[in-house]
């Protein structure tokens, strides 16, 4: 090993460690703060002499987390299966079947991919108010299904475009209907694609903030992220409790990511670039 080679390796490790530090430090700072004495104003990063683990319990009850988690789970259950199912069917249709106006439909969806949520929030508010859904979880679930749809169709279409056409031909020769070909052959093969999509949509719903903030007044009917916003408004000055509460809310997203991280990153790599 030459000196310059060694120097390069040290710099390389140094840069990577610095970037990793940048990524974790805000979370570490939250963690040590969450353990400080309740009501105190600790320094940014300092291990408290006697950690107050009880802060997490206090934050749990202060933010009414049981209700928040229940609400988020209901919203995720309302959004994810429906959206993934529709996106899979639509993606297959646009990729493999000869749909009338398929090109135009796909074009419209692509435009939707760039559409900011904020551009729709005002009319959505008045529409949902006029049909009496404002303040209910459906007011979050229904628009979210629509808003996630372009990405879902885009994602699944990209997957089905890469599918082997010979499989379809073989199935047709064997007398399978279009539905059977889709159900028995392409759907099982697409498992990795739609399960990755489910994880992405879980995160998108779980972390959704704007829709709950605007469309639902009662924090206990929002997503956890929406509830966290309300929590910040209420306990913004009590930094210890706020940090404890935020960490509790982060935890499920973090766990889901760590559990699925292998598939997740792989799917992201395959799906995003097609």
């Amino acid at each position, binding site marked *: 090993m030459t000196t310059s080679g060694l120097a390069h390796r040290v710099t390389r490790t140094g*840069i990577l460690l610095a970037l990793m530090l940048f990524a*974790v430090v805000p979370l570490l700072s939250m963690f040590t703060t969450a353990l400080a004495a309740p009501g105190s104003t600790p320094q940014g990063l300092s291990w408290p002499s006697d950690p107050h683990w009880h802060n997490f319990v206090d934050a749990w009850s202060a933010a009414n987390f049981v209700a928040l988690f229940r609400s988020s789970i209901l919203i995720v259950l309302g959004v994810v299966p429906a959206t993934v199912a529709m996106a899979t069917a639509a993606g297959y249709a646009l990729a493999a079947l000869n749909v009338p106006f398929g090109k135009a439909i796909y074009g419209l969806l692509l435009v939707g991919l760039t559409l900011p949520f904020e551009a729709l929030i005002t009319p959505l508010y008045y529409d949902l108010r006029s049909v009496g859904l404002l303040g209910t979880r459906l007011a979050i679930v229904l628009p979210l299904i*629509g808003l996630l749809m372009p990405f879902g169709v885009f994602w699944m279409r990209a997957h089905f475009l890469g599918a082997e056409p010979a499989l379809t031909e073989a199935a047709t020769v064997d007398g399978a209907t279009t539905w059977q070909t889709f159900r028995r052959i392409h759907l099982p093969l697409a498992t990795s694609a739609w399960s990755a999509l489910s994880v992405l949509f879980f995160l998108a719903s779980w972390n959704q*903030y704007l829709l709950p903030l605007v469309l639902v007044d009662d924090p206990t009917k929002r997503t956890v992220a929406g509830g966290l916003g309300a929590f910040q408004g209420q306990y913004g000055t009590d930094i210890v409790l706020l940090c404890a509460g935020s960490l509790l809310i982060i935890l499920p997203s973090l766990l889901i990511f760590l559990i699925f991280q292998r598939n997740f990153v792989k799917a992201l790599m395959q799906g*995003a670039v097609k």
Partner: protein
Amino acid sequence: MYGVFVLFPMLQSVQYSFYDWDGIGPATTSGLDNWKAIFTQPELLQSVVNAFVLVVFYTVLPVGLGLVAASLIRELKPGAFSTTARVVLFVPQVLPLVAAGIAWTWMYSSDGLVNQVLRAVGLDQHTRAWLGDFTFALPAVGVIGVWVMLGFCTVLLLAGIGKIDPALYEAARLDGAGRVSEFFAVTLPGLRRELVVCATFTIIAALASFDVVQIATQGGPGYQTMVPGVQIYRLTFLQQHVGQASALAVFLAVVVLVVIWPIQRLGREK
């Protein structure tokens, strides 16, 4: 579903944008007034300008740093360190943006870590409440964007590098290319599609940012960190200027489309 909850409201947005409506009483048409206001009212124009400043932080810096990180990770042998680096860098991307906003609001506060570090190295006179500072608030919000986007760009670019034919690297080595010229001759051209995806995703996130700004600064101090997303929210739900909000909303949607379109074309060429 897409039609009812996305396309139809979008058309309504266009319609509202020509009205003067407080959301309760009858709406009156106001012609192009709402549209003119975007270019004449300083606080509206400022929000659009700020959104483009954020592109530097959400897109340029993460893509640049992501390229560096990805090239460095590529040189590592596959193993614990490279996996850890990937996972750790990606974590901020999966957290709710609300949490990112709260974490960084704390980092930037008077007692937060940023000031703590400055004090520790003797730069006491530079400590400040960063998000309340007229000069530094917008860059400070921008750094939150770097934090969120860096992992996404790194992981995606790393995937792209993995697909580049190793023979190209060998050929470059044989031609006597150093690390830098190798990067520009082999890595960068090979990453074209990944770069387009990164740019598209992060530019949309920058121009349409809402969560982080709403939590961290709500557009303040003054209008220093105001972005269109927050402005639309305030106009509709706090000030009841529905028509004005809708004009800004449609304008934002068009701006995003106009910026993204050429980038996508770039990716499809060849």
